[in-house]
């Protein structure tokens, strides 16, 4: 059973769904208030969706300086698995843990509806249980979902296989290269704009998102890169 810290910012609103999705996958998931500085030795950290600090200034720009973020940063830098969903993705970009930025949807409207994404990379901690090329139906709920980078970074993301999910059929927000989610070069930090925690059971309209959490619980995705063990308050490479 993996320990999963779900960080709660003022304005987070997907934290409860995310905790439920992780628990349904068998994880020991617990909330961590953003003013805490100790993540309590998690295996995985999730930044959930929502509107932290009212999206003031830019989505995720203020959450990125919350007291909890140095611990999230340290966990990520030590190779620990981190997932940012929607506002969590925006926050990881603002924090510099993922490249690029999320800008206003190209057609300006807030969009809350199902979209289709293709799984492009299965060697991240959150996608091992998917088949490469599998198409998933997962909802989006965002106003600032247009992923952008400079052309050089976009080319690097493509060349290194860091695009994890890509919109298919239509691109709802105008993102660069139809990108819906990416990972960092170390492949342990992952961001996704759609909400896999909202599609984890047939009663929720489908379970295409469930394997994000089941992959995380299976937890062998990053062993080839770096094995991480929590000792005291620190993560050590072993």
């Amino acid at each position: 059973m993996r320990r999963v810290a779900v960080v709660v910012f003022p304005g987070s609103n997907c934290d409860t769904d995310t905790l439920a999705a992780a628990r349904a996958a068998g994880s020991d998931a617990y909330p961590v208030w953003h003013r805490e500085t100790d993540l309590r030795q998690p295996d995985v950290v999730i930044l959930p969706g929502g509107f932290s600090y009212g999206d003031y200034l830019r989505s995720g720009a203020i959450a990125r300086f919350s007291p909890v973020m140095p611990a999230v940063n340290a966990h990520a830098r030590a190779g620990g698995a981190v997932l940012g969903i929607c506002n969590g993705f925006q926050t990881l970009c603002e924090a510099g843990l993922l490249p690029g930025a999320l800008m206003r949807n190209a057609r300006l409207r807030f969009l809350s509806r199902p979209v289709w994404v293709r799984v492009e990379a299965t060697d991240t901690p959150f996608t091992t249980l998917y088949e490469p090329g599998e198409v998933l139906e997962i909802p989006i709920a965002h106003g600032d979902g247009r992923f952008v980078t400079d052309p050089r970074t976009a080319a690097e993301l493509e060349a290194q296989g860091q695009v994890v999910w890509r919109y298919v059929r239509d691109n709802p927000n105008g993102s660069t290269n139809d990108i819906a989610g990416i990972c960092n070069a170390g492949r342990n930090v992952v961001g996704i704009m759609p909400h896999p925690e909202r599609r984890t059971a047939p009663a929720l309209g489908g379970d295409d998102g469930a394997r994000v959490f089941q992959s995380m619980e299976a937890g062998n995705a990053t062993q080839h890169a770096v094995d991480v063990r929590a000792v005291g308050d620190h993560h050590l490479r072993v």
Partner: protein
Amino acid sequence: MTAYRVEIRVMPRAALLDPQGQAVAHALQALGFKDVARVRVGKHLVLDLDAASSEAAAAQARVMCDRLLANPVTEDFDVAVRTG
């Protein structure tokens, strides 16, 4: 220390799609302002700040922009300082 008023302009990068600017441009054209070729929408921040000199106030404001007020991936900024 002197009181300064610092005005910061944060604009979306010229190369990036600015859908807000486009929407405003279309609205202006619909109102009959046919000569409007392009509109970009940014942010204007006004800070009251104590600093040793106008240069120090501008330097502080630029650090604020680098750390928080502007996103280097998507935005450019400029800083203007006035005596408060």
